[in-house]
């Protein structure tokens, strides 16, 4: 029998959970159906990042995928805005009528708030691979 679960996402040990999906906020213990997607936690509100679909190509924490590159926290807002409004590569465009400035700023703030990735030496599952590289 399925039970609903309250789901909390932690990025590098962060504690605050922000519910993204309306159904998730309706989940109660003892509900028969499983609550949908887990919530994303971050210091800044992730909702615009998800509701405007950024996560689809770039991942929930902007980590990147073959559908979209990793999002850098180093870019100034002006450059970020330019790329979103007039993208290059395969990314579709997001003009103001689709994505207002205040939402774009919220998305930018969210990306800036993401914590740095752990060091390779602290990740044994990856570090072990680095020692094998080019072994043939």
């Amino acid at each position, binding site marked *: 029998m399925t039970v609903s679960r309250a789901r909390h996402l932690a*990025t590098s040990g962060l504690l605050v959970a922000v519910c993204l999906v309306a159904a998730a906020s309706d989940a109660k213990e003892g509900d028969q159906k499983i609550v949908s997607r887990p919530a994303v936690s971050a210091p800044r509100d992730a909702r615009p990042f998800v509701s405007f679909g950024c996560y689809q190509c770039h991942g929930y924490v902007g980590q990147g995928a073959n559908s979209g590159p990793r999002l850098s926290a180093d870019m100034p807002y002006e450059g970020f805005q330019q790329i979103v409004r007039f993208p290059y590569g395969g990314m579709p465009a997001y003009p103001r009528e689709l994505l207002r400035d205040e939402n774009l700023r919220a998305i930018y703030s969210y990306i800036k708030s993401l914590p740095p*990735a752990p060091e390779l030496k602290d990740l044994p599952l*990856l570090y072990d*691979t680095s020692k094998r590289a080019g072994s043939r």
Partner: protein
Amino acid sequence: MNKQTPRRQITRRSFVKVAGTGGAAMGALAAASGAATKAQTEPAPARVKPPTQAEKAREFAAPEGYSEEQRAHYFIDSPGSDYMVDILQKLQIDYLAINPGSSFRGLHESVVNYGGNARPEILTCLHEEQAVALAHGYAKAAGKPMAVACHGTVGLQHAAMAIYNAWCDYVPVIIIAGNDIDAANRSGSVAWAHSAQDPVSIVRDFTKWDAAPISLEDFSESLVRGYRIALTPPMGPTVLVADADLQEGSVKQKPPIPKLTVLQPPQGDLNAVRETARLLLESASPVIVADRHARSQAGIDSLVQLAELLQASVVDEAGRMNFPSNHYLNHTFAPGGPIRSADLLLALEVNDPWGLLNKVRDFADHKTAFVGAENVKVVTIGTQDLFYKSNYQNFQRYLSTELAIAGDSEATLPSLIEAVREEMTSSHKKKIATRKRAAMDLFAKGRDKALDDARYGWDAAPVSMPRLCMELWHQIKNKDWSLVSRSDFQSSWPRKLWDFDKHYQYLGGSGGAGIGYGAPAAVGAALAFRGRGVLPINIQSDGDLLYGPTALWTAAHHNLPLLSVMHNNGGYHQEFMHLQRMASRRRRGIESTAKIGNAFDEPAIDFAAMAKSMGVWSSGPVSRPQDLGPAITKALEVVSQGEPALIDVICQPR
């Protein structure tokens, strides 16, 4: 595994004995229900002596108490479908995947009772699409085809997408389609609904060959021929109609079964091969691109030889396992990509050579961009050009090339290597030697980038793809394993970071991008690997599984060890992105509407419960990355006992 059922001769005496047993069981029930009085007062029947061998033989040949007319009405001796099983056995077809159908009931019965359900053994599938996809995955893992039987009408309709995938992927599948061509013999309205004048017509555009024989002699030749055609490169599915009257009618004298002679894969023209060798030696930056090149380990080994001889970059398009992932010349994931700067491209069984050098941008104006170097030369070696059909467009766009060599690339490479060696001068050797250092640096850059990228989102929930893949790798790397799923939807992380060097370790994808291939193909591969000590690993896309979750039941029913780890991202994610792109292009409705029609997360589907309902051990959903390792350990214990296992993991989209 189903045990071989000994052939049984049903005699009247044994029928009465069985009925008597059933009657006694029913008598026991009657007693329990309170109707015992009558049974207790009647005298016990006299004991019946078992028949002698001579009596049994007489009864089988001429059942006692039946007139000639009655015998002809009730019984058939030596049905045609027994002979069909003889042919399947002679072709050494080990398995027959079916979803049962009355139009091939004769064949079905012959397989289980005449053939003893052994070579071929029946694989019970709960949808014809899965039966064909299972055969597709099996063929790639086993290196030989299996057969599928289905209704010629509704069965082929169900199976169509899977047949299309096998066609696009150039994989042999032998399909036997039941039909009832003689209208006068169809008993009942269903037989009419399940009959057609030309049942194969709905799949003819994506099969290599088909036949509808009306004699057993023709059936025999057609099945042997169809098997051979399926295995002739470019390989692909073939269909043979097994008419119900042929199956169920009696055969007095079985025709001889023709000997199968498999064609040797064609090699490329030697002059063209020699010219290719010269072009490769003259080029400054040759790149070899391999797609469905390696049919066996020999294909990998010869490509390694050629690449090292030339110090040429290799890009693996991964239609098959073509080149070791940890080889310094594997530049598939090198930053920038070597293809853009290549002055010579050698494309080995590449499905879309045009797409290597050109991109049609998915924007409103559909601009095409050329992404290669100016004056790049292209040489193609492959069998695709030997066989085309025109309706379905999987053949891709036409590319003008320097040379187009019609030949199987694995079969052709040894002569190309020999030609390169013969044409190579000391000046060539000197030039080639300078490439090695740069090649090693380029590989290292690609590997470093992958490792760097993998760190991001490492501890995130939903679980990141690098995290999922490396948790798996950590526990399987010292085992004999195979990744039986395509890794594109996981952003190719296994191919970037695992150590692939054996041909069976990667099987490629569906071919036609028909979703629903993954789960049954993984089951087919698991079948091929059973008993060989190879651990099949299936990173299972959630949307794919939902097209045919009953593939899990087939795995459980046939005791197939298979580890499936769900890539549960709650929707048809590719279509999320497509809808997002459309909304952007039309400047409307972008916020939150991409989920409509694409998501299946409200309510979320409990894949662990689904698997359990099919008899598959399962755990999850796992939503925290730190819980993955222990879950994988437990699941692997189950698989090591010879059973399938599934872990549901809530994952990042890609």
